[in-house]
């Protein structure tokens, strides 16, 4: 069973627009990570935010984390056709001998039209 939910399940936008994806989770966490998956490929790590952080930036990506609401959002600014992919949030707990195993949401499928 998966940790939480992502919203929306699918998002279609025009190139140049911003895309916002939301993620909710259920348990206490050590960190939350966002990954991108292109069709037929593995997951690529985008950004990691620790439980004591509220916001983080990386290039065109902005991630927020609200531990009181157990939610996170990923904003992609000035989207490009190459951003078309599925995006997953994943949480890790600091539990002994789990090595930071990831619990994934169900993903948001983003389509950016040129």
């Amino acid at each position, binding site marked *: 069973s*998966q940790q939480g939910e992502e919203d929306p399940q699918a998002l279609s936008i025009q190139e140049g627009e911003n895309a916002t994806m939301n993620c909710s989770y259920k348990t206490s966490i050590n*960190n939350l990570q966002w990954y991108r998956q292109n069709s*037929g*490929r*593995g997951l690529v790590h985008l950004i990691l935010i620790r439980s004591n952080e509220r916001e983080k930036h990386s290039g065109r990506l902005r991630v927020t984390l609200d531990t009181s609401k157990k939610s996170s959002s990923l904003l992609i600014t000035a989207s490009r056709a190459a951003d078309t992919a599925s995006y*997953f949030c994943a949480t890790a707990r600091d539990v*002994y001998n*789990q090595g930071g195993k*990831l619990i994934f949401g169900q*993903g948001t499928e983003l389509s950016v039209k040129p």
Partner: protein
Amino acid sequence: GAGVSQSPRYKVAKRGQDVALRCDPISGHVSLFWYQQALGQGPEFLTYFQNEAQLDKSGLPSDRFFAERPEGSVSTLKIQRTQQEDSAVYLCASSLRTAHSNQPQHFGDGTRLSIL
């Protein structure tokens, strides 16, 4: 060096056959994870190795699933007496350090398993 490599990329087997899926992690990475991804879903954790020790196998669906990493590098996921519900993409990931969870995982492209 190179990223995580998985083989084969595609595997078709008849129900009841045994299959073996291979993962070559990034050289020097201590932690290795296996995940199962059903179509249209997020990956689900199967098992975790720290070097050659399998520390967490809580996600393995049944005793038909077995994983090993005998020398602390290459890992094999074996599924015995395959069933149709085993059809999925099997992803392997590795990360550099051990107990600390604040690090990204590096994923292979997966093995797509189809059971007929």
